[in-house]
């Protein structure tokens, strides 16, 4: 085996980006790739291109109406897919389908035992709900992975860990009452930032009560605050013993992001990735998928994501 890590980077994924000076532009993948090649990380991870997920695969998580509507708006080439954050552009359906398809390809390769870990910088679209796009997220690739693990591979106990500066509402609410989705999310306090949710008191409902951990951080919080709270994430995962980890490593929580107010350095992302690899080795047969998520300062996303990829490459050390 050349590598235990599979990295998803290709042109089709790079096309997932919005026009007209939108913060999520099409240059984000390249910004990461330049730094990854600088650090020679591309030499230690196996590379893979993406494929388009079928409408049926996307509909494992999403309502068919949402899938069809994105297709129509994509053909139309303009308009808003949500309430104003997520504009349509020609080809938005195909680009979004590739984000999901790359995730499903990665999942299939992990489940086939070809690799232990995957990293997909353009992915982690954690605001899309089952029936709507939201916050730059058209299709929820992480949600499709979780529902696919269940329907196709019989794995129900999945951990979703999210350190993006925004609350992962597109994963929290669909699984709020779910008895097997172990949820842990450190984000900027919703009283100060979109989407406004993810209070400490949101611990899950019904059969999912206590299985969800939301940790809101005050604006300006830095590495020291993160490291202290991170211990709770590890304890939460250990207590609930997942069989598979999905990690959303949004780089918009690093100091200098134009949309948010946390003050981490890229070391937080590397630390979280290293520790999650350890937990995955302990509880999940090493199986973990990483997604880039948000991040609108190009230097930050390049350094943050390279820290994650580097940790994944060293994962079994």
């Amino acid at each position, binding site marked *: 085996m050349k590598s235990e890590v599979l990295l998803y980077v290709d042109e089709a994924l790079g096309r997932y980006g919005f026009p*007209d*000076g939108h913060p999520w532009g099409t240059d984000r993948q390249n910004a990461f790739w330049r730094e990854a090649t600088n650090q020679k990380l591309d030499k230690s991870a196996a590379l893979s291109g993406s494929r388009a997920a079928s409408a049926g695969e996307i509909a494992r998580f999403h309502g068919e109406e949402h899938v069809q509507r994105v297709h129509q708006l994509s053909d139309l080439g303009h308009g808003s897919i949500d309430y104003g954050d997520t504009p349509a552009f020609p080809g938005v359906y195909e680009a979004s389908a590739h984000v999901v398809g790359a995730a499903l390809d990665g999942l299939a390769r992990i489940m086939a035992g070809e690799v232990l870990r995957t990293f997909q910088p353009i992915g982690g679209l954690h605001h899309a709900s089952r029936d709507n796009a939201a916050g730059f997220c058209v299709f929820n690739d992480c949600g499709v992975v979780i529902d696919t693990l269940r329907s196709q591979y019989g794995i129900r106990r999945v951990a979703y860990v999210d350190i993006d500066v925004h609350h992962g509402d597109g994963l929290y609410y669909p699984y709020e009452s779910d008895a097997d989705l172990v949820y842990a999310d450190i984000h900027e306090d919703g009283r100060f930032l979109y989407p406004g949710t993810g209070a400490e008191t949101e611990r899950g409902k019904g059969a999912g009560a206590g299985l969800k951990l939301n940790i809101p951080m005050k*604006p300006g919080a830095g590495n020291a605050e993160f490291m202290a709270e991170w211990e709770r994430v590890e304890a939460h995962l250990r207590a609930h013993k997942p069989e598979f980890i999905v990690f959303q490593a949004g780089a918009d929580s690093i100091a200098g992001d134009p949309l948010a107010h946390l003050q981490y350095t890229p070391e937080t992302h590397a630390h979280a990735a290293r520790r999650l690899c350890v937990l995955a080795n302990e509880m999940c047969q090493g199986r973990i998928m990483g997604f880039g998520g948000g991040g609108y300062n190009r230097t930050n996303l390049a350094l943050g994501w390279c820290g994650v990829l580097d940790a994944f490459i060293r994962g079994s050390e």
Partner: protein
Amino acid sequence: MLLKSTAATEDTEATEKNKTGSLGFWKVTSFVVMYLTLLFSVFSVTSVAKKVLT
């Protein structure tokens, strides 16, 4: 509606939850400000002219 694409501010404005900005928001705002300024100038000029004439 809380939008994600609102740019972060460096001062305490960041503590307002209901920042209802969007990508088009600033364009619209600057247009409205420009329009109001123009309207106000026309109004001032008219009232000065009225004073001079009466």
